[in-house]
């Protein structure tokens, strides 16, 4: 009896074991580890509101959690990028020269699964351009790559014109942004534009939607302020990832958003991010495997300069020295002769080596695209052939020009000051080098340069005082514009240097720039990229060779390291897309 029981039990165990072995199904493989990108950032974030997102640390987060009608994606060739519909169903359709329609994708959803439609966009754009809310980065909704009819007029209606008169009132109904039905947007522009310009415009961060129920809850009583996006609870996203944890300027955790319209393009399962201000700590985290990415500063570069995995790329900012043309004690600064002497006395190549930057005897950066096929402005021969040799450094010519200036203004000695922004190591090093170099060229007894460190925003304010009237507060000061629009329209970089620009740093007077910049905005030029390119070259020539509107010195460069497990979607840093972080993958 006992033997029989044992036999049946054995039989049962074998039968159960065989039942579990289904030959049609392979044995389950161990579960793949989630692909979590460990991201250490060096910038302190403070807002994720797409309407109030005006600093790089905020863009970095918003680009992971928001998306607009269109988005830029990497090409399969891994060397380019292009735009695809995101919350839009398809590309824009031109109804006539000034009217475009865009269909919103009926599948577009918020992270919580609620639908996004045309009215969502109209509400978001209306709030973004609201003259009472006066967001500081939303004029781009009306004027970035296209100029929306009456958009800027609506946004600026509570302000005053150049003569101090109140701007005329504009109704929202008169703005060229309309919902024709639940899924159709109609855009009326002030000028004629190409399809690419319209697509690019509606890929801009500020045109991405805001979630109306939370936005309304965040509005203050008189509707002049809104706290949307100032905490995790006050935000709803629609982008590739959901922000699940956010400690401002310290910690952020993301999970893949399964409701994202282009979720199939996203390879990562999540991101664990920290903000670390100290460079040595960032390096320690990278080296210990707690970070997949590190941006290097001077200390890190000293260690990794020869490392083959080090990746560098040019940034938009050209660091220039602005010259005060409204200094009554130093009227000679108005003279291009003096500015030219200083331009040619600066050894940019040496400064670039010292500061890990690129020598820039030019005004437009290496990262502006001039042609539809992706050709960069600085890749064109015509943009470089006229540039002064040796990075503009010509001590003999500099000395000759300087002596001429001394004689012209009957001076024995020139004493100037140079303000540089505190905390910017490259500018301090460059300033110190220039302080030593210029007297050696011009003569120790004939030239003196005093350096003064100043807080960055104070430097900007200081320079602008020369627009309000004569000031002896400053002679020269480091500056460096980098504008979003210059990526695809390099000539937009000239805008703050027009004599009538409202946000300029000094009362410039380059008539050639003024006249030709206006031409570049006309349809005749905008629809002819070659003509635009040629005119852009001519303006840059006038800045560098004739007027020396400001003195360009270096172009900033970034240096980064990626961990080996990261698979980037592009072979190198790509204009418009960067490294394509959102689309990166990880080795198993």
């Amino acid at each position: 009896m006992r033997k029989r029981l044992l036999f049946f039990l054995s039989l049962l165990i074998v039968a159960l074991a065989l039942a579990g072995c289904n030959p049609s199904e392979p044995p389950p493989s161990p579960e793949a580890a989630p692909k979590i990108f460990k991201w250490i950032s060096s910038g302190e974030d403070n807002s994720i509101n797409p309407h109030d997102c005006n600093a790089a640390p905020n863009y970095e987060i918003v680009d992971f959690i928001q998306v607009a009608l269109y988005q830029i994606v990497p090409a399969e060739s891994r060397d380019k990028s292009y735009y695809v519909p995101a919350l839009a169903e398809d590309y824009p359709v031109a109804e006539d020269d000034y009217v475009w329609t865009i269909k919103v994708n009926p599948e577009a959803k918020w992270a919580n699964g609620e639908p996004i439609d045309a009215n969502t966009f109209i509400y978001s754009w209306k709030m973004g351009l609201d003259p009472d809310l006066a967001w500081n980065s939303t004029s781009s909704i009306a004027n970035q790559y296209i100029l929306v009819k009456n958009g800027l007029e609506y946004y600026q209606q509570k302000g005053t014109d150049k003569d101090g008169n109140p701007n005329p009132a504009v109704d929202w109904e008169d703005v060229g942004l309309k919902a024709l039905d639940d899924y159709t947007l109609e855009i009326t522009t002030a000028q004629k534009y190409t399809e690419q310009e319209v697509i690019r415009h509606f890929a801009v961060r500020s045109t991405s939607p805001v979630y109306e129920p939370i936005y309304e809850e965040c509005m203050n009583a008189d509707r002049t302020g809104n706290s949307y996006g100032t905490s995790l609870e006050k935000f709803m996203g629609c982008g590739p990832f959901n922000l699940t944890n956010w400690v401002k300027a310290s910690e952020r955790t993301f999970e893949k958003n399964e409701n994202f319209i282009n979720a199939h393009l996203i390879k990562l399962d999540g991101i664990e991010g920290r903000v670390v201000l100290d460079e040595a700590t960032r390096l320690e985290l990278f080296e210990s495997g707690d970070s997949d990415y590190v941006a290097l500063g001077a200390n890190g570069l000293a260690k990794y300069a020869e490392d083959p995995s080090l990746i560098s790329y040019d940034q938009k900012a050209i660091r220039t020295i602005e010259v005060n043309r409204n200094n009554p004690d130093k009227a000679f600064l108005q003279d291009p002769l003096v500015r030219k002497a200083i331009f040619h006395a600066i050894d940019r190549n040496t400064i670039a080596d010292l500061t890990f930057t690129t020598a820039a005897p030019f005004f437009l950066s290496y990262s502006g695209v001039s042609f539809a096929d992706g050709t960069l402005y600085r890749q064109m021969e015509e943009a470089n052939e006229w540039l002064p040799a040796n990075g503009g450094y010509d001590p003999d010519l500099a000395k000759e020009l300087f002596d001429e200036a001394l004689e012209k203004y009957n001076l024995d000695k020139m004493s100037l000051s140079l303000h540089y922004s505190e905390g910017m190591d490259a500018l301090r090093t460059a300033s110190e080098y220039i302080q030593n170099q210029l007297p050696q060229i011009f003569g120790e007894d004939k030239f003196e340069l005093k350096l003064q460190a100043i807080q960055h925003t104070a430097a900007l304010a200081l320079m602008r005082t020369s627009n309000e009237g004569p000031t002896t507060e400053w002679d020269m000061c480091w500056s460096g514009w980098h504008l979003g629009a210059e990526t695809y329209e390099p000539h937009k970089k000239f805008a703050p240097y027009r004599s009538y620009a409202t946000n300029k740093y000094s009362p410039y007077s380059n008539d050639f720039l003024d006249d030709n910049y206006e031409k570049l905005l006309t349809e005749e030029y905008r629809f002819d990229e070659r003509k635009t390119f040629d005119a852009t070259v001519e303006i840059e020539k006038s800045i560098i060779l004739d007027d020396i509107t400001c003195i360009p010195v270096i172009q900033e460069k970034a240096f980064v390291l990626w961990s080996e497990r990261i698979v980037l979607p592009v072979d190198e840093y790509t204009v418009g897309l960067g490294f394509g972080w959102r689309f990166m993958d990880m080795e198993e």
Partner: protein
Amino acid sequence: MLKYVLKRLLAAAVTLFIILALAFAVVRLMPGSVYDDPNLDQAIIDMLIERAHLDKPIHIQFYYFLKGVVMDKDWGTSVKVEPGVPAFQVLANRIPVSLQINLISLLISVPIGIVAGIVAALQKNRGADTLISVGVIIFISVPSFVFASLMQYFLAYKLKLFPILYQPSAVGALRLKSMVLPIAALSLSPIATITRYLRGELIEVLGSEYMLLAKTKGLGRFKATVKHAFRNASLPMMNVIVPMFANIVGGSMVIERLFSIPGVGGTMIKSINANDHSLTVATLMFYAMISIGTALLVDLSYGLVDPRVRVGGKKDE
């Protein structure tokens, strides 16, 4: 005593008002504008300036500011450091983190400092005293961020005994572990300060006649020290320990930066650099309140610790 407390509170209120007025004037008269974003059109900047009354004379601006504070408890909104967040809310969000780290640091520092001080005093000029005194000199003269960097490098990065960064969202053991290094770095200097101060006070008291009497009455050395000497030596210690509480909420900019702690340290500098006027004034007022409150506490604590001290008592009247 009550009258004295009321007098001191009134004086504190007047002092706070003077500080507020001065802070407001200094901050508003600094070069640069709150609205200096180059992306912002001048027409919009003009409108914002007008709306914030920044185009008015400074005394009118102060009137509007006071009106906001009194009528609506509105200290202004941060424009740059945390755009759209009320200035005091910015501080309220950050203080608990700094408070937690610094409070634990202080709670550790006080007993360790007291024990080390007593040991050093009792072992005066012997090996233990020399060892403690060398440590005291090192911990006082070397800034805490140097120790923090060293501990982070060796204990966290090399030996992997602790996380390199503070973990604000972690719970349980990981959170505690991530707090060890910043707390240790913050504790060294206070421990050294308390030790040095107590050692000096105790050595003086231990040589006094009443201590000799206590010993001749048969009291053990340890008992006599703790019961009599320490009590008398602790009165001047209040001058050292109580102000340390003021630093608790102040945070430590460098330590917080090193360990990525989202605390209040550095808020003032950030707001000044960013021309975030409302936040600067709110932060200044916050620190002023803490400092004045602490000074008041020190004065009052004398009466509690030493019954001989009767501040504002009948004798004075």
